[in-house]
């Protein structure tokens, strides 16, 4: 009888873009032990990269001394990711819609949209002492569904 898959991995990384590759490698290795198709892991990876980018760039201002805390919790049913920065927070409802005609040709502002598309659920938590914690959740089995649905349009 196979052992149940249940892992929690915590990482504390400096705000350098090259550290995104480290977290991506940990995610890839973690997902490799699960019976997921390659596309499912790919889209989760993109969502995680967007969360890390936002934490490093907008949260920590690319200050390498400011840490980003990452937690990957996975079991057979899905993955639960949190990414926390040391920034001053933001208002998610104030983020512009990247699909609005006036925004289509903007060079920024799509990261949160991609996270929402590629994961099932996204929540934000803003600590009293500052910092933004974004939580990304995905149930296995529906991975990549959003993209496939759009491609059929």
């Amino acid at each position, binding site marked *: 009888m196979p052992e149940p898959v249940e892992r929690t991995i915590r990482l504390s990384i400096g705000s350098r873009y090259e550290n*995104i590759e480290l977290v991506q490698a940990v995610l890839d290795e973690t997902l490799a032990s699960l019976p997921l198709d390659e596309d499912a892991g790919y889209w989760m990876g993109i969502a995680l990269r967007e969360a890390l980018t936002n934490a490093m760039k907008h949260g920590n201002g690319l200050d390498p001394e400011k840490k980003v805390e990452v937690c990957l919790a996975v079991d057979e049913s899905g993955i639960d990711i949190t990414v926390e920065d040391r920034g001053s927070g933001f208002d998610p409802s104030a983020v512009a819609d990247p699909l609005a005609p006036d925004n289509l*040709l903007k060079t920024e502002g*799509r*990261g949160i*949209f*991609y996270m929402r598309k590629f994961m099932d659920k996204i929540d934000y938590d803003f600590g009293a002492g500052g910092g933004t914690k974004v939580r990304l959740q995905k149930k296995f089995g529906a991975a990549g569904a959003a993209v496939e649905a759009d491609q059929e349009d």
Partner: protein
Amino acid sequence: MKIDKRQRDGATILDLQGRITIGEGDVALREAVQAAVADGAVNILLNMGRVRSIDSSGVGELVAAYTTVTNRGGKLRLFSLPGRVLGVLQITQLVTVLDILEDEDEAVASLA
């Protein structure tokens, strides 16, 4: 990210290989397009066939390249997009703005 530049029928073709992601590929793409424009390129074709991945920063650089080239009266075309890269552009509706062609021959012909 590796980028090779070549010419065909008056167009500058940039063959992209690797990931167009933040901190590496996005900067390489920006510099390659800016260098091509500085060298006098008017019409630029991006061969996306060997792009393994793209994130929002990479998408932003594609948009910036499109704006840079079209504002100078030129044309920017993308061709041979892998399914995942095309998917990322589709969900943000950029396929309605960017000029995306099936392959190199079609992209070159579209400039005529």
